[in-house]
Each structure stands twice: as C-alpha cells, then as structure tokens.
C-alpha cells in the first residue's frame, strides 16, 4: 500500500480504538432512548451521566454544567446567540477577535444584522490580542467577550487567564472556543474564569458530530434548539448516545494522557519545524513561536501557492492543509493569515501540518525528505521565483 502520512490532526482526528470499543455496545444492544423510563432507557441514561462526569472532570467543571451538542459549531452558535438574546436587555455589544473560527465570526456577523454591535479585536503579527485593546473595547453595553483559546490555523494561544480576569472584573460574560485547545492544554474553567466553553469530540480522537457547551451555573442563556426536555431542557433532541459515550471516553483519555500527548507531539513538531527551516529557503513560521499548540506547525513558503503544495504532498501520501479545512476551495487566503498582516502572496503559500498521537518520527522524516523537493519543483514553475533567482528581489 502507498505510504500515507496524516498531518491534519487539527482538521479532525482518527478515533482511538478504546473510544470505539466503548461506543460499540450502544449502537445495537444498549440502544435505548435516555428519556425512556424502562431499563433500555435507564442504561442509556447511566452511560450519559458517566460521560458527562468524565467531560466535567477534564475541565474542572460540575457535571450539570456540561451540555452536549451536535458539535463545536453548534456550541459556538448556541453560546453566542443564546447569551446575546438572553442579555439583550443589558446591552448589545459583543467583543471578539479577527481570527476566530467561522463558527464564531459568522455568528457574530449574523447578530450584527440583527441589532448587535461587534468589536473584532486586531491581533499582532503572531496572532495574539493586546490586553489593552480588550480593556478599552469594553463598554457599558458589552454583554459578551468571545475569544478562542487557541487558533485552529496558526495554533496561537491567547492570554485566556488575563482575559478571564478582566471579564470577571467588568462583569462581562466570557465565552471561549476551546475546540482546538482541549486535549492540548490543561484547562480549568474556574481558574480561568471561563463562563462558557465550546468543545468538539472529533478533535480529540472522539467521534464526529458531538460537541459540548460548558455553561457556568447561573449563566442565563436562551436555547438554540427547542423541543424535548433533554439536557435539562436546554438542548432538545434525542441524545447521540454512542457519540456522548465516545466523547466521554475521549475526554477521559485526553485528560489522563495530556502530559505524554503534549510531549510526543511537541518533539515531533519541533523536529519538523527545525528541519524545514534548515532545508528550505524563503520560508517563515506563521503563529507564535512559544504560545502555540504543541502539535501545530504552519509555514509560509514564498513564491508558491498552498493548494498546489497540498496536492503535490497528497500525491506523496502526505495530508496537510492550507488555511482551515472549511475555507479551502475558496479563493481568498485565510482571514487568520491576513489578520497577521501577511501579504496576499505570502498568505497564499501557507501550509499547516498538525501532528497527533499516531504521528511517528518516520512520518516526520518522510516529510522532511519530500517537502523540500516539492517546494523546489513548484518554485521552478513559479514566475515569482524567477525574479529572486535573477536577483531582482
């Protein structure tokens, strides 16, 4: 079989076998509806209760502060719209950043069309917000600060503790999109003063189509999905039982293995970055040198374009991404890279390689052997590179 090296763990992860094993009985045998009072329902309910506890434990929350959703995007939409509409009487101003995931950005844009005002904070060249910008953006009408823990493209980690402190002082509700951070950084919602937090299972070796919203006890929020009394009346719909079981297991594993996971991916990631920097010219690392996700590498290769780079790597069995998975296919370079102040030309040439638990040293060696050749081949074809070679640049 052809060699296949998956380096797109930030887009999604393979499920771990232990997670699948945990889920399997809930498809065909223990398939009850958790709302039913008979034994089939009760065993389903128990499984969900356990999973809720596993998830709560992994972020330092209480079980009844965890609400399962259909994924990270639903959690983001729910948090932002739910808080906005529940606090409409207090104000209509929301603060976020320019580099949020589209699930946050497009939700904010939707609210702007419906009477809300949104401040999009700038970020510096490494992708971090300026705390003073945040402070001065807060006004009387500010009801929500929503800032991602770590960016999906460039891996930059925000100063969440400081933001949480400010939000607390100013009595503004603080939502954190931790879809990428969860399982890669130790998170305690109380230490960090987080009021709401979005999570998604498929980024941490759990199943796709299941996420969660942490909602601090006492926080007033409207529902996004109305209907049955599931999730303590806050999120309707028959529970995704195997999905929830899988998420619980994945969260428990992520929590147990956190140190080892970070160590494993960081060593490989650093080797990858070092190797590329040494072997390829005209390349830079996007994102913050230190405050970044342990498995994230994001390169900007000058003179070439990201999609052709991806395709070429794909032909060699190497799976990476340019921009975020959601926006590929689009012609605009990623809003995240643009927010860093990169030129279009440079932004177009970006490649994200994200490392995970199943990545091996051989995988990295293979990339270090092939990627420079691919870059060179594309540069030889590029009219922009001509100029450099000819000394015009």
């Amino acid at each position, binding site marked *: 079989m052809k060699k296949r090296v998956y380096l797109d763990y930030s887009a999604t992860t393979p499920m771990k076998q232990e997670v699948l094993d945990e889920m399997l009985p809930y498809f065909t045998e223990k398939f009850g509806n958790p709302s039913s009072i008979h034994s089939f329902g009760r065993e389903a309910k128990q499984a969900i209760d356990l999973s809720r506890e596993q998830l709560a434990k992994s972020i330092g929350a209480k079980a009844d502060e965890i609400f399962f959703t259909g994924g990270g995007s639903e959690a983001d939409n729910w948090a932002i719209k739910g808080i906005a509409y529940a606090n409409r009487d207090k104000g209509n101003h929301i603060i976020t950043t320019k580099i949020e995931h589209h699930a946050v950005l497009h939700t904010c844009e939707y609210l702007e069309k419906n009477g809300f005002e949104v401040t999009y904070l700038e970020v510096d060249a490494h992708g971090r917000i300026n705390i003073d910008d945040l402070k001065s953006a807060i006004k009387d009408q500010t009801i929500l600060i929503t800032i991602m823990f770590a960016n999906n493209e460039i891996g930059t980690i925000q100063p969440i503790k400081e933001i949480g402190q400010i939000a607390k002082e100013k009595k503004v509700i603080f939502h954190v999109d931790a879809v990428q951070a969860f399982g890669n950084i130790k998170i305690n919602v109380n230490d960090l003063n987080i009021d709401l937090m979005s999570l998604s299972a498929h980024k941490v070796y759990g199943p796709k189509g299941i996420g969660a919203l942490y909602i601090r006890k006492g926080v007033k929020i409207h529902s996004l999905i109305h209907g049955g009394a599931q999730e303590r009346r806050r999120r309707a719909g028959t529970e995704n039982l195997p999905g929830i079981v899988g998420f619980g297991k994945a969260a428990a594993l992520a929590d147990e293995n956190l140190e080892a996971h970070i160590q494993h991916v960081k060593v490989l990631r650093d080797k990858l970055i070092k190797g590329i920097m040494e072997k390829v010219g005209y390349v830079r690392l996007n994102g913050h040198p230190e405050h970044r996700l342990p498995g994230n590498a994001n390169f900007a290769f000058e*003179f*070439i*374009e*990201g*999609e*052709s780079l991806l*395709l*070429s790597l794909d*032909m060699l069995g190497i799976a990476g991404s340019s921009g975020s998975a959601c926006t590929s*296919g*689009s*012609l605009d*370079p990623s809003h995240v890279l643009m927010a860093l102040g990169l*030129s*279009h*030309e440079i932004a*177009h040439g970006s490649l994200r390689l994200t490392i995970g638990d199943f990545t091996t040293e051989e995988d990295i060696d293979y990339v270090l052997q092939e990627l420079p050749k691919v870059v060179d081949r594309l540069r*030889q*074809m*590029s*009219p*922009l590179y*001509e100029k450099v070679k000819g000394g015009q640049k």
Partner: protein
Amino acid sequence: MYSDKVMDHFMNPRNVGEIENADGIGEVGNAKCGDIMKMYLKIDDGVIVDVKFKTFGCGSAIATSSIATEMIKGKTVEEALQLTNRAVVEALDGLPAQKIHCSVLAEQAVKSALLDYARKNSLQLAGLEDFDPTEDHHHHEEEH
C-alpha cells in the same frame, strides 16, 4: 476533486520554463487572487513554434497553463486566438465550479502573449481589439 487529466497536467506539466528572446510574453493574474500565469511564445512565420509557461497558483492554474500551451503549440497565431476557456476545460475533462476562473486565466495568458507579439510587430489581430489583459475576470467567474 480534479479529473485524472488535470492531475496529470499538474504533476507532469508540459512546456514549463521560459523562452529567451520570446516573440511574445504575456502575464496575467495577480498574487492577491493567488494565481499568476506567464506565457512565452516563439513565433515563426505566423506559427507558434515554441511555447513555455510559468505559473504561481493552485493545481488547476498549473494544469490549465500546461494544457493551453499544448493546445496552441504548432498552431498559427489565428488558430491560437480561437482558444477559449471552455475548450481548455473540456480538454481537461472538466474543472470544479470554483476553478473555472483558472481556465479563463489560461485563455487570457495566451491572448496576452499574442497581443504582446502583435504590438511588437505592429500587427492587428482579429479578436484582440477588445482584449484587455489587465481586466479581472476572476470574481465574475467564481460566482456559482
């Protein structure tokens, strides 16, 4: 996503390179949109005897450049002027909707090089009267 034909032209592009003292050179696109195509023509007696290209861009930008050079090589200038983006798409067994603009760019690159040739040789080429190589076809084509 891409047809085998596209992948073949992307992975094994024909006629990559430059031509010294080319009779016509065209460059279209810009880095903002993520595609730049540069095309070089060697024209003898009204026949395109050699053609080379360099492209900065996505897979289909490279593939359309490559196939366009194949499609005009050995043709007369008049024949080359007939090249349409549609013909390029067909020759590649189709392109995804959001990549159609690459074929437009390839057509423009050829025309742009031919215009350069015409200007250098003070020729009037039928079909190029209204052609403006700086026009941005991009954002019309991309709508789908």
